């Protein structure tokens, strides 16, 4: 079957969405962006393909979780990557300054890798949810834990072990490691004892999934290995993606890590006007990151804490440069953390409000996307301001809002493919992991 791939190369994460021929979302994939954008794009694409395969499998088998196959597949993927990590760790442990530690270091590394594998298998047996989808995060946590147990102040130190890991993980992330569906699914099936699942898996595995067209978007889109005509601006993709998720959308606000966008779209999801923040990062997700660091909090803790405020502080400046000093100053004067945070959230939303006003206001329905849309205090502050200034508006926030841009890109891919179908010359699609 034909499918369409959209990739959104963001500053912090890379997202991929696959659509089927009916334009329905078949799969989504996400990975952290890294220095090598094409690797990030490939991994996100692979993840989305896997997700798509599982979706197709789900159509055959119903609830897949009951079979234990998805967890088993994740385990196989993890082990595949861990195996590569083991090889690279060994190489790195014999190089440069690490080499001075000699065999003791290498021995400890092997012990750690073995322990990591054991830990993952145990988690699988206990049906424990993974803390993160990213190999890097999970491996780093385990490695650090076991390295700390084995580090030795006089001999092979914790730092020496970690230094090897830091070098190795970079190589693993950028390596061509096979985490694909077909590369791992059969082992996953065997691990859960095969059975009825095997037939369905075989069928799905043999169904060709042809990426008839793909489109890239996002901050790093110019660095995607795509021809020019397959690149679309994230403004257009966001507008179209939001339209697909909520067809009555007329205004989209996207607050990401690096920038804020206010977009107006028509009934067909076509952008009619947009505004982006200026070079100042105030009012973006990154600003909240600074604040979280300054307060020694996790990013996800900010919103709930701010929600507890009864008397929000009036914060006039959202200058990132002064954020830290202002915060300390206010804390020093005895103001409550939740009040300051509530004030800060409001201040950020004031910036968003001015962009919205520049772009043409807030029209019904209003769709909020981007990482900051997951912050409850930000959402409350925004809705309060919207209502004060524009009246009541229907607010849409999708749990998949992070994929808005990628979904829009996939839709553009589908449209351009369908257009070329009517044209005489057809540029062929590529078959991805059939």
């Amino acid at each position, binding site marked *: 079957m034909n499918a369409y791939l959209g990739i959104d190369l963001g500053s912090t994460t890379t997202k991929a969405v696959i659509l089927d021929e009916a334009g329905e979302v078949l799969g989504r994939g996400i990975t952290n962006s890294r220095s090598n954008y094409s690797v990030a794009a490939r991994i996100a694409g692979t993840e989305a393909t896997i997700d798509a395969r599982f979706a197709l499998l789900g159509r055959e088998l119903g609830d897949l979780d009951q079979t234990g196959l998805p967890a088993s597949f994740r385990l196989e993927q993890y082990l595949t990557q861990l195996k590569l990590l083991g090889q690279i760790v060994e190489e790195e442990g014999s190089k440069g300054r690490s080499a001075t530690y000699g065999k003791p270091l290498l021995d400890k590394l092997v012990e750690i890798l073995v322990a990591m594998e054991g830990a993952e298998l145990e988690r699988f047996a206990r049906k424990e949810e993974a803390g993160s989808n990213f190999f890097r995060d999970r491996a780093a946590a385990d490695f650090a834990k076991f390295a700390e147990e084995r580090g030795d102040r006089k001999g092979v130190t914790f730092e020496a072990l970690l230094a090897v890991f830091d070098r190795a993980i970079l190589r693993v992330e950028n390596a061509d490691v096979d985490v694909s569906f077909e590369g791992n699914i059969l082992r996953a099936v065997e691990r859960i004892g095969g059975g009825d699942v095997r037939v369905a898996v075989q069928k799905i595995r043999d169904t060709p999934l042809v990426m008839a067209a793909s489109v890239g978007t996002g901050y790093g889109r110019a660095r995607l290995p795509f021809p020019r005509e397959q690149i679309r601006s994230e403004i257009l993709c966001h507008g179209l993606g939001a339209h697909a998720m909520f067809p009555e959308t007329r205004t989209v606000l996207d607050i990401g890590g690096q920038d804020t966008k206010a977009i107006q779209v028509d009934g067909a999801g076509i952008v009619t006007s947009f505004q982006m923040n*200026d070079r*100042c990062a105030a009012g973006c997700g990154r600003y909240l990151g600074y604040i979280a660091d300054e307060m020694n909090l996790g990013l996800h803790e900010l919103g709930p804490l701010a929600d507890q405020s009864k008397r929000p502080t*009036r*914060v*006039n*400046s959202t200058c990132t440069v*002064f954020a830290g*000093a*202002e915060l300390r*100053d*206010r804390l020093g004067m005895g103001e409550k953390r939740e009040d300051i945070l509530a004030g800060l959230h409001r201040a950020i939303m*004031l*910036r968003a*409000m*001015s*962009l919205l*006003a*520049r772009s043409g206001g807030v029209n019904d329905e209003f769709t909020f996307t981007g990482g900051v849309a997951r912050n409850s205090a930000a959402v409350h502050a925004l809705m309060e*301001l919207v209502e*004060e*200034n524009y009246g009541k508006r229907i607010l849409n926030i999708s749990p998949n809002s992070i994929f808005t841009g990628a979904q829009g890109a996939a839709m553009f891919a589908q449209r351009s493919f369908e257009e070329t179908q009517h044209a005489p010359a057809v540029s062929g699609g590529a078959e991805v992991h059939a």
Partner: protein
Amino acid sequence: MNRAEIVAWAEANYLDLEFTAARRWLAEEPGRKAVGFLPVYAPAEIIHAAGMLPVGIHGGGDRIDIIRGDAYYQSYICHLPRSVVELAVTGRLDFLTGALFPSTCDVIRNLSGMWKVMYPEKYSRYVDLPQDFAKGVGGDFWTHELRELVHDMGELRGSPITEDELRKGIGDWNRRRALVRKLYAKRRDEPHNVPTDELYQLLRAGEIVPFEEFMTMAQAYLDVCDKDGRRPRDNARVIVIGAFCEQPPLGLIRTIERAGCYIVDDDFLIGNRFLTREVDCSGDAVRALAETFLNHTVANPIVYERDADGKKKLVGERLRAARAEGAIFSAPSFCDPALLDRPMLQAGAAREGISFISFKYAENTGQFQQFREQAGTFSDAIKLWGNV
């Protein structure tokens, strides 16, 4: 009336972004009208001569959230116009029949045209001040401009303004300026009796309340300052330069004072004392008003400095006139007039060995820690080592 009552009256007017006092005055008699004007200098006496209420528009300070105002201005433009627009688009200025935009800088100049686009049904006028100071050149130009304004104000109110009305209106403004100057002289001589935060709020109230009300309250304030003597403190005497357009938040003025400084001269609301001598109302008062401007204004960056050494001499002259010990350059961020002038003024201050500090603010600045530290250190240094 005692000091607390007067100050409470001033504060209430200062804080009131609904312009209740002006609206009340308008409601008292049918047909009354109010005309706003922006900083720095506008000939408000002509609005007054027409029997209309001149209303100084100084933005919303730190008292309103800017939501739509920011949609009109890029981040590198000062704060004043965004809060003026915010006041306007939220309907808070809808009681004004017209507005004057004087030639302060390009931002206020362009706002005059924006106003024409946003409020085509309202009267608005760009008031270009003369930058030539010869009677037969700049004097003729400015007289012509003022006469057009007189004509327009007559049209706005519905009947031409008579020469008598002009003489009376301009004469009233002579009295007003004289009273403001007395207040400033009183503060210069007895800053412990005339705290600047009080004086400032009193003058802010004066920008929006009817003429007689202000005159009464200002005179009453002067009287209580005479009576109710306070003990002077060992504070440093400073002048504050550069805050002539976008006004500093009250917190900034208080921070400077609480850090151990007496403000003995400043540029706040300088429009109400821009002319330094009375206008002769015995003959052609409009011509006299124009000619007074040519040669008798305070030195300010909105007027071309003819004296090549004028900028360099200015800080020293003002310092000596106010018997001050140091200067605080306090300008709004992105304020072209204040910030382009500042290096010349500072070079002059340095030439004379005058101590100074500098900072930037916005009308809605909410944090004063850095100002407190700088001003405190400055006043301590002046007290310990004197000026130099």
